[in-house]
């Protein structure tokens, strides 16, 4: 999608170290020093969205298959975890989580099948089928939500090996652990042959086929792995962040939000997914603060929502025009500008 990904993007190895170091700090200092508001309203949703964006980036950024149905897989992950927990209480939560990811992956593979025949927009539109079908099924069949009339589910307490995660800080740590493990695994997947295959299929499908990349397996792996990650992100979104969710919360706008995250953050970059998610989560909070401070009472919630839409839209277009490679490209440039003079001084 972006014209020429840099070597750093093709070889996402350098990022892994930085992510691990950052996570180590995040595990220690943040839960101890951060406020509940920071963890509950900023960091936990950031982590869930970042993981979803990592999943979509795998599919769209690396394998080049555009999907508009991410929210469907978030929903599948959330509702699958809920049902596994409810109906098979003997299973530990982490097993539920992995199984829910696998269920999302299975559904993702089914909806990924058209990708074998379809390209570009035809595929993008067909992924909308997943979006509408899943949302309909979850509302329609009471079984999924344990017969709640409006399909709402209440998340049970998160507990792993006897330890419960209830306070905002604990739920944050839980999300962080899951996201770190999932991201590291994704990193491994992308650095192996499978990751090369994704990129080959994205850059030139026919050429990839000619040099022996198994198209069927590569595309379905991309859809499966992506849905797996998004499914787990959905479980985090529902269980660690909101704790009460309804199918309507996983609507098309949510799918677009995740797409925007990877566009703003930078396609084919795992760090970009995190940067983009941070931006999308923090930005509306800043905008509402700024709006309230500048305009006071005039800035009611309706006006705020509309102006948020406008600003997000303008930002998307501005990013595509000014920096199609996203925040991560800006970050890298900034980093080089800071690091290179320092390196020269040291020699």
């Amino acid at each position, binding site marked *: *999608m972006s*014209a020429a990904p840099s070597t750093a993007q093709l070889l996402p190895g350098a990022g892994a170290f930085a992510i691990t170091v950052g996570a180590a700090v995040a595990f220690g200092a943040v839960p101890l020093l951060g406020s509940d508001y920071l963890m509950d309203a900023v960091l936990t949703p950031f982590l869930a969205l970042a993981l979803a964006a990592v999943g979509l980036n795998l599919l769209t950024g690396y394998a080049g298959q*555009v999907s508009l149905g991410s929210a469907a897989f978030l929903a599948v992950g959330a509702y699958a975890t809920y049902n596994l927990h409810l109906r098979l209480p003997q299973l530990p939560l982490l097993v539920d989580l992995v199984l829910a990811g696998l269920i999302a992956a299975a559904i993702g593979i089914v909806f990924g099948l*058209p990708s074998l*025949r*379809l*390209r*570009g*927009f*035809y595929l*993008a*539109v*067909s992924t*909308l*089928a997943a979006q*509408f*079908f899943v*949302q*309909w099924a979850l*509302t*329609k069949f009471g079984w999924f939500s344990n017969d709640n009339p409006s399909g709402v589910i209440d998340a049970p307490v998160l507990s792993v090996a006897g330890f419960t995660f209830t306070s905002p800080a604990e739920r944050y740590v839980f999300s962080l652990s899951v996201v770190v493990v999932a991201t590291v695994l994704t990193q491994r997947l992308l650095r192996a042959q499978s990751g090369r295959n994704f990129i080959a299929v994205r850059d030139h499908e*026919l*050429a990839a086929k*000619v040099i022996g990349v198994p198209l069927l397996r590569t595309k379905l792996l991309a859809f499966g792995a992506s849905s797996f990650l998004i499914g787990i992100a959905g479980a985090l979104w529902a269980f660690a962040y909101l704790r009460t969710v309804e199918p309507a919360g996983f609507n*098309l706008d949510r799918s*677009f939000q995740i*797409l*925007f995250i990877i*566009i703003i953050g930078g396609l084919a970059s795992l760090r970009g997914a995190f940067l983009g998610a941070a931006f999308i989560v923090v930005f509306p909070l800043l905008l509402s603060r700024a709006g309230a401070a500048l305009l006071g009472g005039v800035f009611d919630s*309706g*006006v705020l929502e*509309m*102006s*948020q*839409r*406008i600003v*997000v*839209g*303008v*930002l*998307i*277009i501005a990013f*595509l*025009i000014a920096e*199609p490679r996203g925040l991560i490209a800006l970050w890298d440039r900034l980093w080089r500008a800071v690091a290179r003079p320092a390196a020269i001084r040291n020699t």
Partner: protein
Amino acid sequence: MFDYQFLIEVLVGGLLSGVMYSLVAIGFVLIYKTSGVLNFAQGAMLLFAALTFVSLVERGSSFPVAFVITLAIMVVLGVSVERAVLRPLVNQPPTTLFVATLGLSYVIEGAAQLLWGTQVHGLDIGISDVPLDIAGVFISRFDLFAAAVAGSLVALFALFFRYTRTGLSFRAVADDPFAALAVGLRLPRVWASVWTASGIVALVAGLLWGARLGVQFSLSLVVLKALPVLVLGGFDSIAGAIIGGLLIGAIEKLSEVYVGRLFGGGIEAWAAYVVALVLLLVRPSGLFGQKLVERV
């Protein structure tokens, strides 16, 4: 005993509502054909046009005046989209342009509602919705009117494409943008006019849909109804948009009435997508879309 009269009634109702889908889909096709952009903002443009029209009427202007003013605004919108969004993004991959129109739809939706408010407006365009009894089959008068409007719009476009210089240049650009550029056609101008044209389609479709559903935010979701139509008919064929619209309209109503019961109803939201998907597996470029030729 199978009720054929009821079947026909459902079928006709479906076909006529399909015309409304075609009307939205044509706006997409115009833009896709000439610039290769899948314009997700078409629904937002529809909302914007309808909302502007209704708000002008509510502020006391007559129908023709409101129509002309809205038309002028749509022209300005089309030209400025070309200037601000398309021109800087020239030569970017189609997906980038698609995401840009996604952003554009957010901007237009937000602006429309910020400007005119979020409440639901009624729109009465003077067509009573008394069903017409034709040989024992009841047909909505409004649907017939909508079909007539859509039909004349399509005929108008066909004539325009066939007999005017601008139409000729549209066809040239759709055929081969580089060749068109080489013979001296000004692509930006063609794009601006094609966005204007689809703005006009959006206005007409917006008024008809607005009269049907009320002018409100959900009007922009009509775009989601038009997408399976496009997939079915092919993104770059006006004939495909019409036939796709008719098919989707008929399938949607028939499946809702005859199949929907099995699932407890409400399958309208995705039935069209599933049908379009199945068809795509057989014909990956829709019924009338251009075959994708791959070069190495």
